[in-house]
């Protein structure tokens, strides 16, 4: 075994351990002050908690924290993998799923469910309409960019920004007509949070997210070709339009499924692939699975941090990722500009 292969194996072993450690931390720390980490840990192991009612601790750990942690693992993996694929596909290091109107469309669907009262008829209307909104927005971006000529990376990004802005405006209009008693709930969703999510949400999201990630892994060679530029991809025999459509479809499933259950969590799709690229390099066969593992662990750890920092408020995880993401984005922007000038 060569040294570089051994190093890669160690790296992937560490990355694979990250979601597991994060999941354990997410299940054990933070949350209600009355459940001590030791009691929560005993409940995770299936042992009887010592300090307060065992039923209560089991319910909190397995019915409240566990689905939340699983959803965040799925969402983190989906956002990070989609971001890595999109940055390659659009040849833009600053690309992220939210730039394609996915978050805006999902927000529109979710807020419509809350404002119309459908959310109370059946809570699953929120993720279902959010998922539909994300898919419609992404289709609209692709269709509009197509009608303007060939859907080039630039056209796709600009159209994504426009569709995202339109969605935001429509969300604002709906918020103005929403009763004040609903506003807290809607804002909690718009900030990106997994609070109150159940195993029902996990069942809803698991299939599209895993299918989307799997499709992206299948398309790894195409993604590598697209990352080198359209001319290179065409030279390598890739049908660029069809390849982009395939990747977009996979991103719609993965990121759309994720955003529908945890809301628009910002910056994971931008930050994680960049951090991972520095460790494993750019080949999609390494970058995509590594991003999935790191993204999953990162999002759960951010959520655990949010719960520890603000026990009585339950800060949405989207706030933590945004706080971490803005400085990261600025550094990245600075580096990108410097390398462009040097080139």
């Amino acid at each position: 075994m060569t040294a570089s292969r051994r190093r890669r194996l160690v790296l992937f072993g560490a990355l694979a351990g990250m979601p597991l450690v994060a999941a354990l931390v997410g299940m054990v720390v933070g949350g209600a002050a009355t459940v001590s980490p030791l009691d929560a840990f005993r409940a995770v192991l299936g042992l009887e908690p010592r300090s307060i009612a065992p039923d209560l601790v089991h319910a909190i750990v397995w019915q409240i924290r566990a689905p939340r942690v699983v959803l965040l693992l799925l969402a983190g993996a989906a956002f990070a993998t989609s971001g890595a694929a999109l940055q390659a596909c659009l040849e833009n290091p600053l690309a992220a799923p939210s730039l394609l109107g996915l978050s805006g469309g999902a927000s529109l669907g979710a807020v419509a469910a809350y404002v119309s009262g459908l959310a109370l008829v059946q809570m699953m209307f929120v993720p279902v309409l959010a998922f539909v909104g994300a898919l419609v927005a992404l289709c609209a971006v692709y269709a509009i960019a197509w009608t303007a000529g060939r859907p080039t990376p630039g056209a796709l990004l600009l159209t994504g920004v426009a569709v995202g802005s339109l969605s935001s405006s429509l969300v604002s209009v709906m918020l103005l007509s929403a009763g004040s008693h609903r506003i807290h709930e809607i804002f909690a969703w718009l900030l990106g949070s997994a609070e109150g999510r159940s195993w029902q949400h996990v069942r809803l999201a698991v299939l599209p997210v895993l299918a989307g990630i799997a499709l992206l892994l299948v398309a790894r060679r195409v993604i590598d070709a697209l990352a080198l530029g359209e001319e290179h991809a065409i030279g390598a025999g890739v049908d660029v339009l069809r390849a982009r459509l395939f990747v977009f479809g996979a991103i719609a499933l993965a990121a759309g499924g994720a955003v529908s259950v945890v809301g628009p969590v910002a910056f994971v799709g931008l930050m994680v692939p960049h951090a991972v690229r520095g460790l494993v390099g750019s080949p999609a066969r390494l970058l995509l699975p590594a991003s999935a593992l790191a993204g999953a662990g990162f999002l759960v750890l951010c959520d655990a941090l949010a719960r520890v920092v603000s026990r009585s408020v339950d800060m949405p995880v989207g706030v933590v990722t945004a706080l971490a993401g803005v400085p990261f984005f600025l550094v990245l922007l600075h580096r990108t500009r410097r390398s462009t000038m040097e080139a």
Partner: protein
Amino acid sequence: MCDPRRMLAVFAALMLGTGVAAAAASPAPVAPSRVCSVSLAGDELLALLLPVGRVACVSPWADDEATSNVRGRYPKDVLRVAAHVEPVLGRRPDLVIAAPWNNGEFLEQIRRTGVPVHVIRSIASLDEMRAELRDLGRLLGVEARAREVVARLDRQVAALRAAVAPVREPPPRVLSFSHLVVAGDDTSVDTLIDLAGGVNAARELGISGHRKAPLEALVALDPDVLLLGFEPGVSVEQVLAAYPPLAMTRAAREGRVVLMPPRLLTTVTPHLLEGARRLAEALHPDIAPIALPEGP
């Protein structure tokens, strides 16, 4: 030659006479006749104190099924206006009644045009409610009516307290929950729970005001009774299905859940007593049905 002292005395007499005459001629303060309310709290308070003919506009929330206690009270010719300067001024009001949560810039713009603005105080307790009713009564020139409303409020409070006084069990710990938000100390809901003979469980979490609290903390709190504030037409089962962690509480498992429209929970007017009556009957099923005194 004129004596300067005499001249000064004449001048002083003239000044005094002019002042007295001016004072005699100035009209008595006129009670406002075109009052505009830009919040639901104002709409409900005006409905208690003023004849509809003196109300020029109310907020759009006056007609809201979920939150308003004055739905159907104001005819269509009383305009519904949101808190925006031009539509409010378009009604030519001589007094604007606003709430503490109305936009400060909007209120400042109204004041700059010379229209007086009264901002309702933040009301959480019965004393604050009484004080606001008296203040508004003076401002609107309906002191006698305000006294009647306060007296009726006091009779209703006394009736409610007397009804729950014989209850011997320790007061149940009640947790209010409405769209992820719980009401802690210093809220009208806290007053409502106290009137109904319960204690507000959210106080144990150190919550003050209306706050979004982690569902996990609410489950760990394990209240005796859940007080849900949700729109009409929504059932307890739907709420518990929408917020699965709530279904894990002992209150939900043992069926001690009270569903109440938000209009009775969030109101800062004597309508709160009706909410307290309903909650008291639900908390203490052994006591006789409570009749709140009506009339002036």
